[in-house]
């Protein structure tokens, strides 16, 4: 988990730009996002709704609805690893409905979603749906082997009596159990990257704790990379080695988990930290972020946080978009208040 060699890069996103072309105008949902995740590591993505965190994930899977979405720039490089001649694929160059990407989804990258009820078809049993994914990606298994593998998976994600529940329909399971089944389906073909888009938001706190523990254990067991998306700081901090803070389609700051909580640099990160109630207490009064989100159809030219920032520098911040700079090793921030380490 702590290996830092550059060879075990799994996914590399460079300057990703995903725009939505709508009747009302163009929404630059993701406007120049870069990051990478190494084998076995986890990256947490934090941001409010509309910051582009889900669209980033959907772009990696190529499941953003095209149209209206369009990938207007950047690269998403998937490193297939030594077993596949270290081939590197640019996901953005693939046909989103083609054979190649279908072979990569679930097998290399899989995703779990917020609402497991809508992710499963209500017409088929969960065993049926998980089995289908296995049959597609691991051809050559007999019906019996597929069923055994499904039962084994359901057991591993903590579903009691998997032999019986394999034949149940999604509506017969509770929210927590459905999310477990969703995770079993996502892991059915041993993916190397798991993208989790707010998988516990719809769940109760005690069930959430169970699911978080399950995902963390499975990540270790399968040595998967994890991209964990949430608006809940505490959840992300428990799930991630590194955290990326997004605002209006841009990365504001990125650092190791401990560092970004103890030493947040970007004014947006600082404001966000101050505005959130914490279970540890010690807050006399929360400090809400002043102002409102700018109109998404007409984003400012410079820093997107300019209008709400306490430290804004007129003439600079509203004119030029601040570049991403590395202020200390592995701590990057996009703000003119900081300079690169000399």
């Amino acid at each position, binding site marked *: 988990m702590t290996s830092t060699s550059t060879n075990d890069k799994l996914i590399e996103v460079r300057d990703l730009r995903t725009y939505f072309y709508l009747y009302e105008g163009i929404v630059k949902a993701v406007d120049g996002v870069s990051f990478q995740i190494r084998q076995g590591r986890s990256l947490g993505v934090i941001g*409010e*709704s509309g910051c582009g965190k889900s669209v980033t994930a959907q772009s990696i899977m190529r499941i953003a609805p095209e149209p209206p979405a369009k990938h207007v720039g950047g690269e998403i490089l998937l490193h297939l690893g030594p077993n596949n001649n270290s081939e590197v694929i640019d996901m953005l160059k693939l046909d989103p409905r083609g054979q190649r990407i279908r072979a990569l989804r679930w097998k290399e990258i899989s995703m779990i979603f917020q609402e497991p009820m809508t992710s499963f078809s209500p017409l088929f049993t969960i065993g049926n749906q998980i089995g289908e994914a296995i049959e597609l990606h691991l051809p050559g298994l007999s019906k019996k082997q597929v069923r055994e593998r499904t039962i084994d998976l359901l057991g591993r994600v903590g579903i009691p009596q998997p032999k019986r529940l394999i034949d149940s329909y999604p509506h017969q399971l*509770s929210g*927590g159990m459905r999310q477990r089944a969703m995770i079993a389906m996502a892991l059915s073909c041993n993916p190397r990257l798991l993208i989790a888009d707010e998988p516990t938001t719809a769940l*109760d*706190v*005690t*069930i*959430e*704790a*169970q699911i*978080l*523990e399950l995902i*963390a254990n499975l990540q270790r067991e399968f040595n998967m990379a994890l991209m964990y998306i949430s*608006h*809940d*700081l*505490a*959840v992300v*901090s*428990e*799930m*991630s*080695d590194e955290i990326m803070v997004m605002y209006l389609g841009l990365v504001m700051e990125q650092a190791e*988990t*401990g560092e970004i*909580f*103890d030493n*947040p640099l970007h004014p947006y990160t*600082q*404001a*966000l*930290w*101050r*505005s*959130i*109630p*914490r*279970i*540890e*207490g*010690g*807050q*006399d*009064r*929360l*400090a*809400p*972020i002043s102002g*409102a989100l700018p109109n998404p159809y007409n984003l400012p030219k410079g820093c997107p946080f300019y209008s709400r920032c306490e430290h804004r520098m007129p003439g600079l911040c509203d004119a030029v978009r601040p570049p991403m700079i590395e202020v200390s090793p592995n701590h990057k921030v996009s703000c003119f208040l900081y300079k690169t380490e000399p």
Partner: protein
Amino acid sequence: MQTSLHTQEPSTPSAGISDTALLEIRGLRKWFPVQKGFLKRTVGYVKAVDGVDLSIQPGETLGVVGESGSGKTTLGRCVLRLYEPTAGEILLRDNDRILPVHQLEGRELQAFRRNAQMIFQDPYSSLNPRMNVLETVGEPLLVNNVAKGKELEDRVTEVILQVGLRVEHLRRFPHSFSGGQRQRIGIARALVVRPKLVVADEPVSALDVSIQAQILNLLKDLQAEYQLTYIFITHAMSVVRYMADRIAVMYAGKLVEVAGKESLLTRPRHPYTEALLSAVPRTTSGRNVKRTVSVGEVPDLANLPPGCVFHPRCKYAVDRCKVEEPALRELDGQLVKCHLAEQLALTGIGPSPNGAGRT
């Protein structure tokens, strides 16, 4: 405070309430019938709220926490008579009178609604899209015959300014507002009749993190200004820590622990409270947290286990817990419903090492 859980004849007239309490709930039950077949025969009951006793002091915020299905929303709605309680008493102090809320009818029930209002969770579905802000916020004044015409408009204007909206918003319709602004409209609508008691059911759960802080601060400011009493229902422990003075923990329709905020969070007395607190993710814990995760899920409310309702999930349970239901009793000023409360040393949330200083 009365701690007996089973008021045998809950409809007997009350002898009045304790000297200071604003609201007193005794033996409250709400059972929803489970009906089956063509004749809709009642085959059982979902015991959403089953024997709750609570008393609330004026000006305080009582946080009600619990998992979904624990009955916290049903409790809030029964208090406001949005649901008809199956049994039990609800007594509200109205100046020198004690209103028996559970048996109010007609005109008196209407008068009660001027004293107690609700803020709903979802600002998108709780506002009528065909009514503008003036109509939405003014409606409680109109139906309660408090004000009309120019006076109504003045009072609506006053309250929407207080919740942080502007005069030009009066003629606008809900679709033109953001989630945070809609929740402000919902708050204005609740406060326009100057209630004493406000039940807030997950008022910030549907809002974005940076908007949550604005609404929570607004609720606190309004409470200070109007001496409001809040029943604050939420599943988010960090929010309840910020808002509440006292916390009531519900599980499967029953109160399992009621205590002052600090003592409940730092030194819980009920194993369910411990499990609930342990499950809350924290920014300080980092990766690889070890927690006392409670196994299993909330029990089926139509078919509750015998004995203590929590015993199937409780890691401290002994044989006695499986057969004998514990009473909600007082222990060092906290109310707890557990046979073993004296013997257990449970872990809560320690004070934050640098919580306040972290920016």
